[in-house]
C-alpha cells in the first residue's frame, strides 16, 4: 500500500504543476483564482495521503486547517479586489 | 545527497532569486513579495539543516524559531503594505524613484 500512496502523491503533485499553467495563462484574474482553488483541494489530498503514509495524526490536522481556510483567499478576492478594480 | 541537503540548496536558490528581484524591481508590492520569498528560503535552510540529527526526530529549536519567524514575517508584511498604500496615495504610484526631481 505504501508504494501506492507514494505514487499517488507524486501523481497529484504533477497534477498541481499542470494546473499552474492556468495561473500563468489566465486570461482573466478569475481563471487564476480558480486554479488556486484547485491547488487547495489537491494539497488536502496530498496531506491526507502523507498522513496515512507516515502514520502521523498531526498531518490530518494540517489538512483540516487547509480545508477550513480554503475559502478565505477566494472570498477576499471576490469582496475586495473585484469590487474596487475592474479586474477582468 | 539526501533530501535535507536538497531542500537546503533549494532554499539558497529561492533566497538568491528573492534578493535579485528585491534589488531590481521598482514596484513596492513586488519588493514586499521578494522579501517574503527570501524569508521562505531562509526558513527552508534552517529547517532542512535541523534534520541532520542522525536520529528520527529532528532538532526542534530551529523549528520553534521558524514558527515565530513566520508570524513576525506576516506582521512585517502588513506594516510594509500599509506603508506602500501610503506612498501610493502621496505619489500616485507605488514605486520609488531614483530621481529626486521627479518627486511631486
Amino acid at each position, binding site marked *: 500500500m505504501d508504494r501506492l500512496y507514494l505514487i499517488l502523491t507524486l501523481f497529484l503533485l504533477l*497534477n498541481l504543476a*499542470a494546473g499552474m499553467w492556468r495561473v500563468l495563462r489566465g486570461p482573466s484574474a478569475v481563471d487564476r483564482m*480558480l486554479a488556486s482553488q484547485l491547488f*487547495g*483541494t489537491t494539497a488536502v489530498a496530498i496531506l491526507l*495521503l502523507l498522513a496515512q503514509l507516515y502514520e502521523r495524526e498531526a498531518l490530518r490536522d494540517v489538512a483540516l486547517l487547509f480545508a477550513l481556510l480554503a475559502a478565505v483567499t*477566494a472570498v477576499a478576492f*471576490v469582496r475586495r479586489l473585484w469590487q474596487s478594480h475592474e479586474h477582468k | 545527497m539526501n533530501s535535507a541537503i536538497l531542500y537546503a540548496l533549494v532554499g539558497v536558490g529561492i533566497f538568491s532569486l528573492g534578493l535579485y528581484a528585491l534589488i531590481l524591481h521598482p514596484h513596492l508590492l513586488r519588493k514586499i513579495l521578494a522579501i517574503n520569498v527570501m524569508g521562505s528560503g531562509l526558513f527552508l535552510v534552517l529547517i532542512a539543516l535541523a534534520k541532520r540529527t542522525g536520529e528520527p526526530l529532528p532538532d526542534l529549536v530551529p523549528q520553534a524559531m521558524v514558527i515565530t519567524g513566520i508570524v513576525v514575517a506576516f506582521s512585517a508584511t502588513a506594516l510594509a503594505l500599509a506603508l506602500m498604500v501610503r506612498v501610493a496615495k502621496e505619489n500616485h504610484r507605488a514605486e520609488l524613484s531614483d530621481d529626486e526631481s521627479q518627486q511631486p
Partner: protein
Amino acid sequence: MNISDYLSALLLIAGGLFFLAGTLGLLRFPDIYTRLHALTKADNVGLGLMVAGLAIQADSWAVVGKLLLIWGLVLLAGASVAYLIANGALKRGIRLWRR
C-alpha cells in the same frame, strides 16, 4: 494484501483519475463557467473517493470522522466559492461561452 486493501486501492486510484479529469477540465474548457464546473465537481468527487479509500485503512473511528469532516469542509468551501465567483462573473457581464 487482502480484500479491503484492494478495495481501498481501487477507490484511491479512482479518486486520482477524478483529479486528473478536473485538471484537464481546468486546462481545456473554454470559459470560466465550464472551468468552474469541472473544478468543483470533479475535484470534490476525487477527494471524496480518496477519503473513502483512506477511511477503509483507518485505525479508529475518530480518524474516519476527521476524514469525513475534512471532506465536508472542502465541499462547503468549494460550493460557496463556486457560487460567489459565478455570481460575480455574471454580474460583471462575463459572457457565457457559445459554440
